[in-house]
């Protein structure tokens, strides 16, 4: 029974079927993401929505998509807890989405780069994710779906305020572009706070991995635009990309400094981390995150040559708690999970 349990989303794990090629600077930029919020004027917004309205919207969106796009359309109420967690770990749904008690659905377009949440905080939340710095290509992929559905429905739009959203903080373009970066150089040289405060000054937000308020782990940071109105979409993409590139430059300089000053120590840290990943018999996802951070740094500065970033990115996603269970196709207790995770990583890194 186990292997057939999660067939409807198992194809996402590992994420080998991605249709969008990886973007630039992928040794520092882990992923680029875009979210676009849309509502219909013919239906009440989330807070005033009845279950019947929610069902109607799901049916409508499904019928539009079914005729035109290949992918998986999943109803929240039919999803197992593990599947919800896994989609969250793959960043295809939001934490708010999996907690909804009204009818809600998600469509995942073939390839796993673009998803559409129906009945999250807004009627429609289009999302895109790609590796590397790739906001412009990603936005084309997201807006292609946004337009296709938009041609068939009545988006709530106002000439002055643009696209209307549930929350005033998303009004206008409804777009949030984010870049997810690995910044061990800045962490080590204590420059991270300075850079991040600078980002806030120019209207950009900085967060941990899973959105607001979460702790920053494995030297991973996310930058995104805070303002959604008063800019054209391409300006928001450009500003976010520009800030990402600025931070990349500072990070690269910090890495040079580290390597000139403390090469031996860092080589040691990198190879010890790699050795643990290659030999551990049981390992937690938190530890993996930190070890991968060191190895990613090693690949970025050319110290580690035999492992590709693609392999590393895959381990990063698959070793998350829900994904690892999906990968093996069975429900696992925490202890078993740690053992299986270690097994998977050894195999991925070519050790038996």
């Amino acid at each position: 029974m186990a292997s057939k349990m999660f067939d409807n989303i198992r194809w996402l794990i590992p994420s080998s079927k991605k249709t969008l090629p990886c973007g630039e600077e992928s040794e520092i930029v882990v992923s680029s993401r875009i979210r676009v919020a849309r509502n219909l004027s013919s239906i009440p917004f989330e807070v005033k929505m009845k279950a019947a309205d929610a069902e109607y919207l799901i049916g409508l969106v499904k019928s539009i998509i079914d005729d035109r796009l290949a992918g998986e359309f999943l109803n929240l109420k039919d999803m197992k807890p593990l599947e919800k967690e896994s989609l969250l770990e793959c960043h295809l749904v939001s934490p708010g989405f999996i907690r909804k008690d009204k009818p809600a659905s998600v469509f995942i377009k073939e390839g796993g780069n673009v998803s559409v949440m129906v009945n999250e905080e807004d009627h429609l939340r289009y999302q895109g994710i790609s590796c590397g710095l790739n906001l412009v290509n990603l936005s084309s992929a997201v807006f292609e779906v946004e337009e296709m559905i938009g041609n068939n429905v009545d988006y709530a739009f106002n000439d002055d305020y643009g696209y209307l959203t549930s929350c005033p903080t998303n009004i206008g373009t409804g777009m949030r572009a984010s870049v997810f970066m690995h910044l061990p150089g800045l962490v080590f040289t204590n420059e991270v706070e300075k850079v991040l405060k600078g980002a806030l000054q120019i209207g950009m937000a900085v967060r941990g991995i899973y959105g607001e308020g979460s702790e920053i782990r494995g030297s991973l940071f996310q930058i995104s635009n805070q303002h959604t109105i008063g800019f054209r979409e391409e300006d928001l993409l450009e500003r976010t990309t520009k800030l990402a590139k600025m931070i990349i430059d500072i990070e690269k300089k910090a890495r040079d400094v580290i390597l000139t000053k403390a090469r031996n120590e860092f080589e040691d840290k990198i190879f010890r981390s790699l050795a643990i990943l290659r030999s551990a018999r049981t390992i937690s996802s938190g530890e993996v995150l930190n070890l991968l951070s060191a190895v990613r740094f090693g690949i970025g500065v050319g110290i580690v040559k035999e492992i590709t970033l693609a392999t590393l990115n895959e381990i990063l996603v698959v070793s998350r708690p829900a994904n690892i269970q999906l990968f093996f196709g069975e429900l696992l207790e925490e202890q078993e999970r740690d053992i299986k995770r270690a097994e998977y990583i050894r195999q991925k890194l070519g050790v038996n």
Partner: protein
Amino acid sequence: MLCDDCKKKPASISFKEVLPDKTIELNLCDECASKRGLLVTRKLSPVEILQKLLRQRSEQDEKVICPRCYLSLAEFKRIGRFGCSDCLTTFTSHIQHLIKQIHQSDRHIGRKAAPGTKQGLEVYRLREELKKALESESYEDAAKIRDQLREYGIKDV
């Protein structure tokens, strides 16, 4: 530890700058840190600005009500969410400043919604009607609806 600059007040912040030839470490009090331009006061995020603005309430708020979804301005201020696409217009005079303060702009210059053929809404309505017609075995009606759907280019009905 005393501040490295004034040597009077206790240091509250430490800075470390790693340069190729040396590492500079400074322990400063708030005042001296801001003199050196090192203390950046954090700006409020849009969510924080919104929360702050929504706390400005008036007795009139209960009386301003969206005619379509019946959300009152008071309720909007409690939950920070609009109830439908008409709320913004209803509340405009009360919340104009809000959008501007959150985003430093209240003018959308981005993409414009395509007029939207609304074909999807119509096709969906017809499909639901077709389902009902078939369930109640009204085959004549079903055939008519099917023809209408075909006009929209939907073949698999």
